[in-house]
């Protein structure tokens, strides 16, 4: 018997969250109505077939990441959910302006703290917070990076609160990963839902690789007319290796490992079958610590001896620049809205999640008294590690974190638990609301370009707020749609909503 999809959606619960698709049970938001209609017409067998098709396509292309839980890494597909997330153009425009403003301020901040440090002298950010940041690189004080750009590629994580406001959760300003999933997800969706896709005017994401290459070529040392750009990877065993190879392939550049490069005569070269070839720009997917065993970690076998010296002399450019990690320190994050006001004299378009700093005595008191309602994060961990979600923790775990915070207040932050928005996802044989975030990728070259949409990550475990792939997360295709009909419907929809709200309050 074929169960029509409408049954799967009819059980759907919105609960007390902001739902991306449904404004209320059975009331789809205007930009989702065509999607809902399509899924209602689809039989469950058809839906199942499409799911299999998607999984097979990811597996055969080797779109996998590696999980290390024993000696042998196992390859897994990043779970893909077939219900796309849709963002109307008007909503996206705001996000885009907010992100552009933010990356501009972050780059000004990095330039400032590696030069005059006026933001510290003016007391906007306490001096010690920068100087004590794990990823601050005082070795690069007064060093001029090519074109004054520090962060060329940034992945900024956004979430939506219970009212649907977009908030910034964190900035990934070192080596953000995941963009290959955006491109692969899109390709898969186009293959699997050609008709649905053509009913929406979805902004293309396929030019990301070209934009990335342009941003990389833009920082080439002067004199390099046809600059040679390479992607430096830690190698095949890195969990993001697939992405490295994907990006190199789609840009048509070489993917190199540290052992492929050698510094000679002050310049970086790669070893080819025809001898050494000069390299001008390195898109490095290796963290600062491993770049050059002569300067940073001595035991690094992934890096290239002498690379940093060549970089200092301007013989080779790096993206991202060395020392950007200070900008994605979660304590520094707290100050980004202040940076925006300080450098740009503007109000932040996208707000931060309210953040408490244990290094401030008042905040510390508040944090320790309210641990069950807070999320505590270590300032420099990522991937969902090193954090405590108060509401889901035991008293012992809270005690442990309280100890850690007291011992090292500089390296923790606390935030109220945000009820992340949810999006319908196919779990346990039916449609269920699952929490999502959004990571747009921002390129800073001659101009700022942002991939329309980005990576929507979804926490597939019921109730979970952690979307990381290492913790049971999956992803969805993200559509930014240009459609006047939708925009008009959306406008009247929002009006009617606010009217009904004001009526219900009177």
């Amino acid at each position, binding site marked *: 018997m074929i169960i029509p999809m409408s049954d799967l959606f009819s059980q759907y619960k919105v609960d007390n969250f902001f739902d991306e698709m449904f404004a209320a049970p059975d009331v789809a938001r205007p930009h989702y109505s065509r999607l809902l209609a399509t899924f209602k017409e689809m039989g469950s067998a058809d839906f199942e077939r499409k799911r299999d098709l998607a999984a097979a396509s990811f597996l055969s*292309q*080797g779109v996998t990441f590696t999980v290390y839980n024993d000696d042998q890494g196992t390859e897994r597909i990043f779970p893909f959910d077939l219900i796309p997330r849709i963002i109307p153009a008007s909503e996206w425009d705001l996000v885009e302006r907010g992100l552009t403003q933010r990356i501009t301020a972050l780059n000004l901040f990095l330039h400032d703290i590696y030069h005059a440090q006026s933001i510290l002298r003016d007391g906007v950010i306490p001096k010690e917070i920068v100087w004590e940041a794990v990823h601050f690189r005082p070795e690069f004080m007064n060093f001029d990076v090519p074109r004054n750009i520090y962060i060329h590629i940034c992945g900024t994580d956004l979430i939506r609160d219970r009212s649907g406001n977009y908030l910034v959760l964190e900035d990934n300003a070192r080596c953000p990963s995941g963009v290959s999933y955006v491109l692969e997800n899109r390709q898969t969706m186009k293959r699997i839902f050609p008709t649905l896709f053509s009913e929406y005017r979805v902004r293309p994401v396929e030019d990301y690789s070209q934009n990335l290459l342009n941003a990389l070529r833009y920082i080439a040392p002067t004199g390099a007319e046809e600059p040679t750009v390479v992607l430096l990877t830690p*190698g*095949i065993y890195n969990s993001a290796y697939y992405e490295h*190879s994907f990006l190199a*392939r789609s840009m048509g550049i*070489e993917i190199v490992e540290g*052992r492929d490069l050698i510094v000679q005569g002050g310049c970086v070269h790669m*070893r080819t*079958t025809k001898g050494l070839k000069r390299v001008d720009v390195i898109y490095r997917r290796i963290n600062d610590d491993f770049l050059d065993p002569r300067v940073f970690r001595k035991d690094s076998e992934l890096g290239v001896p002498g690379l940093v010296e060549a970089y200092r002399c301007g013989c080779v450019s790096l993206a991202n620049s060395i020392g950007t990690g200070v900008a994605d320190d979660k304590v520094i994050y707290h100050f980004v809205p202040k940076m925006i006001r300080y450098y740009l004299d503007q109000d932040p378009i996208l707000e931060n999640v309210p953040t408490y700093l244990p290094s401030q005595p008042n905040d510390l008191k508040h944090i320790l008294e309210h641990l069950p309602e807070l999320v505590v994060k270590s300032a420099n961990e990522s991937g969902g590690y090193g954090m405590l979600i108060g509401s889901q923790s035991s008293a012992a775990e809270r005690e442990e974190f309280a100890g850690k915070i007291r011992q090292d207040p500089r390296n923790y932050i606390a935030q109220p638990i945000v009820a992340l928005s949810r999006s319908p996802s196919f779990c346990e044989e039916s449609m269920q609301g699952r929490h999502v975030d959004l990571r747009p990728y921002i390129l800073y070259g001659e101009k700022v370009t942002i991939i329309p949409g980005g990576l929507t990550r979804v926490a597939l475990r019921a109730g979970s707020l952690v979307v990381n792939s290492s913790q049971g997360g999956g992803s969805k295709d993200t559509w930014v749609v240009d459609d006047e009909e939708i925009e008009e419907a959306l406008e009247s929809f929002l009006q009617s909503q606010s009217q009904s709200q004001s009526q219900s309050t009177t």
Partner: protein
Amino acid sequence: MLSRVADSLYWMSRYIERAENDARILDVNLQLLLDLGGEADAMQHWAPVIATLEETDLFDSLYGAADEHSVTDFLTLQKKNPNSILSCLTLARENARTTREQISSEMWEQINRLYLFLESEEAKQLLNSSPHEFFMRVIFGSHLFQGVTDATMTHGEGWDFIRIGRLLERADSTSRILDVKYHILLPSGENVGGNVDTIQWMAVLKSVSALEAYCKLYVGQVAPWKVAEFLITHREFPRSIRYCVDSLDGALHRISGIDESRYGNEAERLSGRLRSDVDFVTIGEIFEFGLHEYLTEIQERLVEVSNAMYATYCASLSAA
């Protein structure tokens, strides 16, 4: 092209060819057992197969006696054998993964599909229920990979490194398959003869897909020295040693751009000399020298070409 990439393409290709040759050898020998029926002594039949592949020690450490089941397991899905079909495909795929920006997506997908099949439960079942079909999957998987390579990859430097890997491995494999039966060709060979031998020599030809081509040339007369002559000196049969060595020399020269009548590096000097030796040798001379000795020398000289090629194109890698 990056030296490391050239090296990986070469090994990717060698491992796929090796997996294919494993499948051929096993398939033919399993069928041969059926032909020989009760006359066959399993140990006598299988021990030389393992010896040909120079894996006797490893085999003995993993299994008791060499028989149909142990040898099949050893050469197909045994992960501890670095030259089993599964290990070869695993390594080929690892090499393909590090060179994905050089090979076409179709090539990657073909290797990956074959690898995923070998890792699957389906592969185990097929090997148990219908080994011939299993081997055909592997052999055709390899053929498909070669076809996809020729049809979708630019015929440039990388493609030539892939060909070199395949040709070196194939020449080596043909020489080993021939070598395993050399004892039948001892001076008293005239007396050995008999029905069993003919069937065995037909099996040798089958294992390199050469029976049909051979029969056309020699009109069906399966004689040991003719089989050896065909597999060593035939100019156009794609699995003969001469064909492989000629093409190998050609591919090396395509990479350097140097005329085939001259040499520009040590790899070309060695391959050119090997080529002219194999081009001009007669089967009479080979038997005079000793077939086993001759084949051993060929194998050694192939290793020398491989080493010289590494030194020429990839050594800057290890010099660091």
